[in-house]
């Protein structure tokens, strides 16, 4: 019942006119930027961070919530209408969604995506509201060695466990960790990897890295492989779903939520798993198997719900433990840090108005998305019609603007360009990008927890395995690290037997 009271208080905060306005702006901006191809929610948050500098923390976090959800909705619009998913989690939506658009059923596809996202997102936010206090109680018992072990699990799962190549994933992670080293060591004041350049003493900004890797890197990559512009499928026919559509959608929505929320909450890096799980489940359970491949509405309803639920799920470890488990969560963490706030049990205790206001705003943002975006589909479609040349030129201008507003130094801009080249090379040579961002933001946190643990134990490394929590977590991390290699060798073994 405590939670209800807290949530009610949060609602009061969230329903203040200024905060409602922020939520509205966030949702609108998030969708507009999320609709642009090649820009996923992580980059959307990164690009729009500077816009919130002058606002108070409560308001800007609410705007982030709006941007976060709006970015995801925009991404699914792109996936359905031009078969260009903005991020890997939208790939499943693109499979059936684009087919529906080709068959003239783009409206119902968008509608089921929006409503499914709303249903799953609302359920997930309720889940977040109820799970968070319990997790906070658990987190309070965490010592520095436990936090360190948890971060190691996050490192391993984000980079190695899921994805084609653990070696490349780990390489990306270590590049991120290296970037995290740059700057002054907080515990001793020693400069590391600054090579005498004073601007580097502040370290590498997460936003510069994210915007460089995602925006500039994507622009360079796309320009190097220029092909015909995809044709945008006009949204023909009715926007609304028929009764049949509703009947076929509601169970996939609920199932999508069940996949998305728990998996999103685990440090298991990414929304690809729940969306694809949802897709294959809907495919197996559908009463209209002949529709799959031609535009089956379940194939859009399920994955979209899973995607949204997983995004809300990612907020669980972020808010309760301060642990970002995806690039987007890392950007949200950066958003908190710019106000000197550190999400975690302390924040729940010290600034409950902030945290619960944020959670309540998630409900409101979800509702706004539903109400706003269906009628505005025409506007989003028109955004997609902008010629690619202007689109990417504009993206680069915004990327520069964001970086130069935060830190107007030539060194920063050079880093932006350098990270752009890095992002381009990583895309070309098939290295995953998210681990770099997670490495940059979690690396220093993990290091400080480790050093704290060791200095409390007076230099005894056994402290890492003496605590049952950290021992278990390190064990899980080890299994997660070794599993992909073992499984790969086993499948080679099997192939030889054939």
């Amino acid at each position, binding site marked *: 019942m405590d939670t209800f009271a807290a949530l009610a208080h949060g609602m009061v905060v969230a329903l203040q006119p200024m905060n409602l306005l922020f939520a509205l702006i966030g949702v609108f901006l998030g969708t507009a930027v999320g609709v642009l191809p090649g820009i996923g929610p992580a980059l959307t948050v990164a690009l729009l961070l500077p816009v919130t500098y002058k606002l108070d923390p409560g308001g800007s976090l609410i705007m982030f919530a709006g941007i976060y959800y709006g970015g995801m909705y925009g991404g699914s619009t792109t996936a359905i209408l031009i078969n260009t998913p903005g991020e890997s989690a939208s790939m499943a939506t693109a499979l059936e969604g684009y087919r529906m658009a080709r068959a003239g059923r783009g409206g119902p596809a968008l509608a089921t995506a929006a409503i499914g996202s709303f249903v799953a997102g609302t359920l997930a936010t309720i889940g977040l509201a109820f799970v968070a206090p319990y997790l906070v109680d658990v987190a309070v018992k965490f010592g520095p060695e436990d936090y360190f072990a948890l971060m190691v699990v996050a490192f391993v799962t984000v980079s190695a466990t899921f994805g084609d190549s653990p070696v490349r994933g780990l390489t990306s992670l270590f590049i991120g960790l290296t970037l995290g080293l740059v700057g002054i060591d907080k515990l*001793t004041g020693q400069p590391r*990897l600054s090579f005498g350049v004073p601007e580097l003493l502040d370290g590498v900004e997460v936003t510069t890295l994210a915007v460089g890797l995602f925006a500039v890197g994507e622009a360079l990559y796309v*320009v190097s492989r220029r092909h015909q512009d995809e044709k945008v499928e006009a949204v023909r026919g009715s926007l609304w779903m028929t009764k049949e559509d509703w009947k076929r959608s509601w169970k996939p929505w609920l199932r999508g939520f069940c996949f998305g929320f728990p998996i999103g909450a685990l440090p298991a890096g990414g929304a690809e798993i729940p969306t*694809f799980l949802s897709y*294959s489940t809907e495919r197996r359970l559908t009463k209209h198997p002949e529709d799959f491949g031609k535009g089956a509405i379940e194939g859009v309803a399920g994955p979209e719900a899973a995607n949204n639920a997983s995004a809300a799920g990612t907020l669980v470890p972020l808010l309760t433990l301060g642990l970002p488990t995806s690039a987007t969560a890392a950007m949200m963490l950066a958003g908190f840090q710019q106000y000197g706030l550190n999400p975690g049990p302390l924040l729940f205790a010290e600034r409950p108005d902030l945290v619960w206001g944020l959670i309540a705003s998630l409900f409101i943002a979800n509702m706004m998305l539903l109400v706003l975006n269906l009628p505005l589909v025409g506007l989003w479609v028109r955004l997609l019609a902008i010629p690619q*040349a202007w689109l990417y*030129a504009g993206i*680069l201008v915004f990327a520069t603007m964001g970086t130069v507003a935060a830190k107007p130094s030539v060194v920063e801009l050079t880093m*932006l360009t350098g990270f752009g080249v890095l992002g381009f090379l990583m895309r070309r040579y098939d290295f995953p990008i998210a681990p770099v961002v997670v490495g940059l933001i979690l690396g220093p946190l993990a290091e400080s927890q480790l050093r704290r643990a060791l200095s409390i134990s007076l230099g005894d490394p056994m402290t890492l395995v003496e605590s049952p929590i950290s021992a278990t977590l390190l064990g899980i991390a080890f299994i997660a690290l070794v599993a992909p290699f073992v499984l790969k060798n086993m499948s080679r073994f099997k192939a030889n037997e054939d």
Partner: protein
Amino acid sequence: MTDSGAQETKPARRGVDWAGVAIAAGLAILALVIALDAMRIHANVTYGMGPQAIPIAIAIGLGVLAIGNLVNALRGDVPEREHMDFRSVGLVLAGLAAMIAIIDFGGGFIPAMTVLFAATATAFGRRAILTDLVIGFVIGTVIYVVFSQLLTLSLPAGPLERLL
């Protein structure tokens, strides 16, 4: 159960992947740089780790990964790569370099954005440089005004901005 779309099976290339070898070499050099930088730190910490411990650990990790990448490269175990349009990439990079130079020499935000916009649009295939310069100029000005008047954030000001 086959992977549902998350992986595409591309044929493993025969022969050595020289780009992969270069990447492995790059990682090894990075590891060396980190290690050398860490070793020049002389910090005495009574208990626990000093600031040089983690960099050395990361350097070792990178060294191991360099070997891993090298093994993959020698095996030729990499997906197919498409042909790359270097000219366009170079043009975008030139636009970025010009933007940085303009800001560095105090030229201001708006001219820098103008050049960046036009260069990128041209790299993406447009052949209307004058129009793009104008559009870039307008966008740059709008952003500058919004940021400096509405949001009171400062962007690099050159002679043009001081007129506003």
